């Protein structure tokens, strides 16, 4: 099972849009795919029309035997399942803090899922916390959406600094540009210049597009209602690029 996380310290940058749309593409191509909506706000859960509720809450998930497995819900799409958000996830930190080795514990928690899934997408809440630390330890790839603004670049540097400090050598950080508006010269400039310092930045950029916003109204992944739109094609291209990285 390949574990990918969508992460940024900032909110509203396109983490959930990426997790939902990429997971949809993975499942459509035949892979058994699970999204864990770790954000207590439950945006991913909302998109899949599933109740943001887990019996027993985060405590049960982390504590009991096959706590995760029994909470999983299938989505509208074959092979694509969701581990829903729950409001109690806002205390996930405290729950993990009670554990001796939070990262190890988290990994162990995910291990049994490998029998049932080819991909696991972790849709993270914004912030740096014990949860994100555990996610960094468990994930193979960290997908970081960045809106091309100076402030976003700073948060990206913070993520790299964190990686250095923690010695997360197994983690592959893959930033990509999100909500890009080519009419803005600032966006254009950053999109051109950042890859020179950070060659690992993915080539595909996700454009700013109203059809992506529509996901919230339709409660569907983008490709399910607008498969040929520019943004949908961009997500497909992004997914191909990520798969290449997974193969490499």
């Amino acid at each position, binding site marked *: 099972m390949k574990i990918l996380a969508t992460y940024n310290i900032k909110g509203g940058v396109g983490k959930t849009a990426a997790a939902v749309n990429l997971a949809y593409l993975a499942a*459509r*191509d*035949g*892979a*058994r795919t699970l999204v864990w909506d770790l954000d207590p706000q439950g945006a991913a859960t909302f998109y*899949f*029309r*599933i109740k943001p509720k887990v019996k027993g809450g985060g405590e049960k998930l982390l504590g009991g035997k096959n706590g995760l497995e029994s*909470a*999983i*819900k*299938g*989505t*509208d799409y*074959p*092979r694509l*399942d969701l581990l829903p958000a729950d409001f109690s996830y806002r205390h996930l930190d405290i729950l993990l803090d009670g554990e001796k080795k939070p990262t190890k514990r988290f990994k162990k928690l995910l291990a049994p899922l490998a029998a049932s*899934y*080819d991909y696991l997408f972790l849709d993270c809440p914004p912030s740096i916390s014990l949860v994100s630390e555990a996610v960094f330890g468990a994930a193979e790839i960290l997908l970081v959406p960045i809106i091309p603004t100076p402030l976003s670049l700073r948060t990206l540097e913070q993520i790299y600094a964190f990686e250095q400090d923690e010695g997360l050598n197994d983690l592959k950080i893959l930033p990509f540009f999100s909500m890009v508006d080519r009419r803005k010269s600032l966006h254009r400039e950053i999109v051109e210049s950042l890859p020179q310092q950070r060659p690992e930045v993915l080539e595909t950029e996700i454009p700013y597009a109203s059809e992506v916003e529509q996901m919230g109204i339709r409660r569907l992944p983008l490709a399910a209602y607008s498969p040929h739109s520019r943004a949908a094609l961009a997500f497909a291209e992004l997914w191909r690029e990520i798969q290449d990285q997974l*193969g490499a």
Partner: protein
Amino acid sequence: MEYLLSEKLSPASLLDSLRGFAPCKAEHPREGRLRFFDSFDRRLFRQGLILEEETQDGSPFLQLRRLGTGSVLGSASGRVPDFAEDLPPGGLRDTLTDILENRRFFPLAEVRGLFQRVSLLDDQEKTVARLTVLDRLVGAAEEGSDWRLPSRLRSEPVRGYDRELRKLDRFLRNGLGLETAPEHPWHSLMGGAGCSPGDYSAKPDFRFTPAQPAGEAVRAILAQLLDTLERNLEGTIRDLDSEFLHDFRVAIRRTRAALGQLKDLLPTTVTARFRPEFAWLGTITTPVRDLDVHLLGFDGYRNLLPPEPSVDLAPLRERLLVHQRRAQRQLAEELASPRFRKLLADWRAWLATPPGADSPWPESAALPVAKAANAHIRRILRRVLREGAAIDDGSPPADLHELRKTCKKLRYLLEFFQSLYPRDKISPLIKALKELQENLGEFQDLEVHAQALRAFGMMPEAEPPLPPETLLAIGQLSERLRQRQRQVRAEFAVRFAAFAASENLRLVHDLFGRKP
């Protein structure tokens, strides 16, 4: 779950009834096709599995299903490739390569029809169960003619909505009176074509009663071996995968062992006529098999070397492939030759001769098979023990090779006649022999590999020379193989002692009488 739709219930009225039960979203029916795949020797079937390739609108999709429940174990988009290792990376590829190894996929059957997908929804318009109506089904197994199959309804769970699925299944069974389909459509098609799904096994199954005349028993063994040989003939000629030739050769070796070890139970005219012919068949199939063994072992070779020289081996693989294809062409010609055709025809004719209607049989052929089996097994066992005991640390490889051949003969005799003996005694003995054979087999294989590699390193002038770094890598590899061979050789004494241990000799005594 899979249900049969009776003639009376059309898909349209089924949908109407479903709508009365819960909100549904139905797609348009579309032309679709399901193809069912397994390996020639039905490895998936033996595990209760089948690989389905579903095509609608020209985009194929694969699902590995359990035959009973229809549950899906893995999936991928794309069509079925020749070999499992050619699947896209993922769980499906891992599972299938584990099961199929180097066996290719075979299309066993296909059905075509109108497929309609239906989603059962909850009050949020969220899917809670999935259904597919498979209507107007026609299909065929292998090359058989088309059959009409009753329409089917497949229900598939959505995870976390078990209650909804149970309710749906209850409704389908009790509310609509649908019957669950007793078998997978593939089985129905095979039945229609007069085959059974698991009708090929590389392992023959010989069954005798102790009092049966020995000569007839041997003829029955030979007839079954010819069946195996013929079933693998086409795959061998076309080189569909390397297992065909392997099974083909095992059938030849077993035939030769029977003709040689049991010759006193057969007419002398028969052994005199056919032994040289089967020896010839063994010889002409050897070059391809040797090259297959190299190619199959290639990844193993690479892993024996550090990364860089292992890359340098690539030209060797190319070279092996060229040789394999050349040898394969030659083999295919031999197997199309009048000599081979005549061998098959004459052999089949003799095997089908009714008892008493052919050349005179020796008197011993009338002995009860149990008695004859005991005597023959005892004799060859004695030889194994004698040859093995004579081998010490200084013995030449040829002695081990000889013992290996003797062990094979013993193994074949044990397998021919095992139905005559209590299982709890014969099985442990076969197992002990197998462990000894593994040691001898690995030793001999390493010998062959190392020799062949040297030969490749000193390729005749007729071929372009291999690059120097490849020759270097070959040299390193030969050295590794020699090291491993020394290890295996050092283990021989322990393995042989374990085989000749007193508890096994006691088994031998109980099984075959007298001291071996």
